């Protein structure tokens, strides 16, 4: 009897999204558990920070200073380029760039299931996150929100085997779709035309097609291309830029750009 109820629940979960509110509530309930299991590590980090020597701190300080200087110099250029870009876009009568509002969130847990690449983060609907909010770290895109609870959300990583993201090559704007493989360090471009100009080392950016991810964020780098003339399509292996299992802090883009459209697809469950 209960077994039957469970099967019915699984079916409802799989074929409809009626259980979505329940699952979102659960994300909030689960957060304290994950927080508790993360406690030893946080104590370790805290101790590590407290017990550092003066030399180490001085060294880090000077390193950060240098980095800030570098970034400031770069951002000066950026301002000029941005102004120019806006001007050109106005000349072309196209839509202006929207500045995205970015929120820093902390990763409080990862899915215990090795087949699911899902993170739990400590921001939710109360902070402006919704279904599909793009999540990134300092080096690239990480994924998108699939369950937004009140104060915690689950994030599906782009490497999950049910995820796909539209990308384009930085060098020549060729478009493709990068699919997750279930391996934390690999994405795959399937169905590339055999003649398409993609090389090893090409940087892939999110293309913004599909309306879920903002355009222009780094997704990954092509490391191998398999062009077999015997098959109709070429395939490319991509290493994701975002550090899927290293990031402690992530950025949630809660600006204008995440239209809650359908567009880019979740192939499987959610």
């Amino acid at each position, binding site marked *: 009897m209960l077994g039957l109820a469970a099967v019915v629940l699984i079916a409802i979960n799989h074929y409809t999204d009626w259980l979505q509110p329940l699952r979102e509530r659960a994300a909030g309930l689960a957060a304290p558990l994950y927080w508790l299991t993360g406690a030893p590590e946080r104590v370790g980090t805290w101790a590590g920070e407290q017990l550092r020597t003066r030399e180490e701190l001085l060294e880090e300080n000077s390193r950060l200073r240098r980095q800030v200087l570098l970034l400031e110099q770069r951002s000066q250029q950026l301002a000029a380029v941005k102004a120019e870009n806006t001007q050109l876009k106005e000349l072309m009568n196209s839509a202006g760039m929207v500045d995205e509002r970015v929120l820093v969130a902390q990763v409080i847990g*990862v899915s215990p299931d090795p087949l699911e690449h899902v993170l739990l983060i400590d921001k939710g609907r109360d902070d402006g996150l919704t279904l599909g909010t793009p999540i990134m770290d300092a080096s690239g895109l990480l994924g998108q929100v699939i369950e937004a609870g009140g104060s915690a959300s689950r994030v599906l990583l782009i490497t999950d085997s049910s995820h796909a993201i539209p990308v384009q090559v930085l060098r020549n704007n060729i478009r493709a779709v990068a699919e997750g493989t279930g391996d934390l360090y690999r994405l795959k471009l399937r169905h590339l035309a055999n003649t398409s100009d993609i090389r090893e080392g090409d940087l892939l950016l999110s293309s913004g097609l599909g309306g879920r991810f903002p355009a222009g964020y780094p997704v990954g780098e092509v490391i191998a291309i398999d062009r077999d003339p015997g098959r109709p399509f070429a395939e490319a292996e991509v290493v994701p830029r975002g550090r899927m299992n290293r990031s402690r802090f992530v950025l949630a883009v809660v600006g204008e750009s995440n239209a809650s459209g359908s567009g880019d697809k979740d192939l499987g469950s959610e």
Partner: protein
Amino acid sequence: MEANNRWFIAVTVVVALLLAVMPLPYQWLWFRPAFTALLVIFWVNYMPQSLGVGFAWAVGLLEDLVTGAAVGSQALALAVVAYFSLLTYQRTRAFNMGQQLMWVFILVGINQVLGNWVHSLAGKPVSGLTFLWPAVTSALLWPWIAPWMSGVAGRLHVK
């Protein structure tokens, strides 16, 4: 002691859920023992008169919600495990540790097979028999967990 100290059951459930979501290195994830399955097997064998399929189902549902898995998948798996434990508890109590170990391996294996079935429904590829690793680690953990748990439960007069 007057009270029957049922709170101990709740404590073990929470601990099992904590262990089930405890962060592990990515390479070790496949070897995480199925703590909730062990919990259900233990409690159903310990007090089959009051804890059964319903208890297992509730624990499974909690685990589904906490881990974010397909709602109902662990509920189904644990309910089946509890059902088999209920059918056989009279025999398993007479088993020696080696036999118990094998039996736990089979029960957790059933748990894993059902979980894997739901996974494949969701289109997640599973390579070979790797999904059975938790059954092995759980069985190896059983000789430590079971005597300790029944010792504490006995001292607290959980009934």
